[in-house]
């Protein structure tokens, strides 16, 4: 498992369905091992299902504060953020993880918080890449999405996370191929590849020195 130099604020953004929420939850849990006060904020105004809130019980049991739309997982699709969200960027006593919605449309919600984050200048803005997603199969596609998000969110990326996976069908080769494309994206964008996220069980078989181990939430529709 890779040693991460944590910033006060870590933002996960990327293409729709690249695995940002799952990463953010795992990252917050990891942060909590080193810091007393951790908050995770769900800025997703795009995705109606499968939210940070799904992990609320787990997060709260570890003493992690969760801030999310009061309508998340409800029967209402209302893209509004709670006012507590400002506290995440303004109250600098806590370590914060921000889960940004997918694509540029998701990143629009970030715009009003970006100035605070940039001013404080103690953040990682990480681009989550899954090269098994059909609209980001190549580093070129991913770079296009990256630029769109930066322009919508008003803040530039400063790192890349390789989260290439095919859900239950992920093999070490899937991860290696993703790593290769991530390194290409790193070269094209000039941003470092911070780490490669791999499901905990699978990570035992992955021979890379930059692995961040993930626990993946079981869903009700998964077949036993």
């Amino acid at each position: 498992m890779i040693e991460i130099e944590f910033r006060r604020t870590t933002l996960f953004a990327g293409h729709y369905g690249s695995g940002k929420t799952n990463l953010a939850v795992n990252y917050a849990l990891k942060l909590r091992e080193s810091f007393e006060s951790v908050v995770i904020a769900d800025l997703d105004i795009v995705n109606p299902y499968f939210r940070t809130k799904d992990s609320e019980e787990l997060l709260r049991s570890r003493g992690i504060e969760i801030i999310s739309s009061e309508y998340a997982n409800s029967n209402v699709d209302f893209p509004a953020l709670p006012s507590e969200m400002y506290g995440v960027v303004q109250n600098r006593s806590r370590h914060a993880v921000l889960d940004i919605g997918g694509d540029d449309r998701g990143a629009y919600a970030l715009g009003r918080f970006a100035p605070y984050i940039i001013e404080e200048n103690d953040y990682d803005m990480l681009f989550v890449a899954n090269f098994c997603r059909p609209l980001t199969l190549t580093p070129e596609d991913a770079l296009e999405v990256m630029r769109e998000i930066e322009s919508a969110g008003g803040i530039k990326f400063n790192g890349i996370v390789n989260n290439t996976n095919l859900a239950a069908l992920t093999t070490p080769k899937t991860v290696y191929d993703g790593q290769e494309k991530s390194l290409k994206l790193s070269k094209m964008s000039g941003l470092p590849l911070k780490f490669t996220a791999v499901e905990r069980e699978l990570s035992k078989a992955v021979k890379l020195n930059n692995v961040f181990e993930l626990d993946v939430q079981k869903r009700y529709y998964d077949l036993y």
Partner: protein
Amino acid sequence: MEKVLMKGNEAIAEAAIRAGCRHYFGYPITPQTEIAAYMSKRMPKIGGTFLQAESEISAINMVYGVASAGLRAMTSSSSPGVSLKQEGISYLAGCDLPALIVNVQRGGPGLGGIQPSQSDYFQATKGGGHGDYHLIVLAPASVQEMADLTVKAFDLADKYRMPAMLLADGTMGQMMEPVELPEAVEYKPEKPWAVTGTENKREHNIVNSLYLVPEQLEQKNIERYEKYRTVAENEAMCEEYMTEDADVCVVAFGIAARVSKNAITEARKQGIKAGLIRPITLWPFPKEAIRKAADKVKGFVSVELSMGQMIEDIRLAEDCKKPVSLCCRVGGMIPSPEEVLKAIKDMEGGKI
């Protein structure tokens, strides 16, 4: 073809494009908006048309126009939006036009909610619009099937000159799974009836559902029902899972079938012989499989995200030979494997 990781909604959109659909018309509604979003990104790059119509009603009538010209067209929505489309769907049926309508269902009635549901079963299978007609209704239960059945729906619609519906639910639309996408085809319509311009070389083709002479309209309806009989005889599809020795047969489609499979695995572990018939086509309903199972099982359990809309089709298929119980959650809720297991046990023990 290498597998990719997709949302169910995206898989529908990409599969439609690969099946040669170049005309998509829609209006946003959760939980199916990813179909429109995907189309808006892809269609301009391949010379296709993505159009966000001013309403669901406009969208379905744009489909009517493209289908009349013999090309593959589709629209998608979720429950309340599909209600709005019913008039247009009836017109498509009345003109014998092939087209694809996708319904990623959410809780109802009325505005309901955005969470998954299967409560548009009646609307889809019994004809939500006016007049004597049927749609071919396909019910996917994985992201792979979201792709495969989209292609199948276009093919069947063309083959029988009738509209087809893909009936999914919010979970199927939102969940992500690996999928092997179908091969892209270059679609060459063979539709001599289509309105494509006569070039002054042939008689006009006319696409219309208005008949001024009642005898002609009656005849048209009779012919259409002969066609429906052929479809019912040839196109019913289902998956049977552990039914050979089953005492209790669960009947479920879509997301309910996935939960049921997990319940059946657990039932088998506990020594209860349970099996599953999963209708893949809801119209035509897989009557034959149910009828055969009725000779062997103690009873059926219908697992649904509706208040039991499928039960009457099960009873009709098995001639009320065996009891049918209902295990359901509604309003955006999903039955748990434990709830299904309890329903299986109750049927097995004669407690229904």
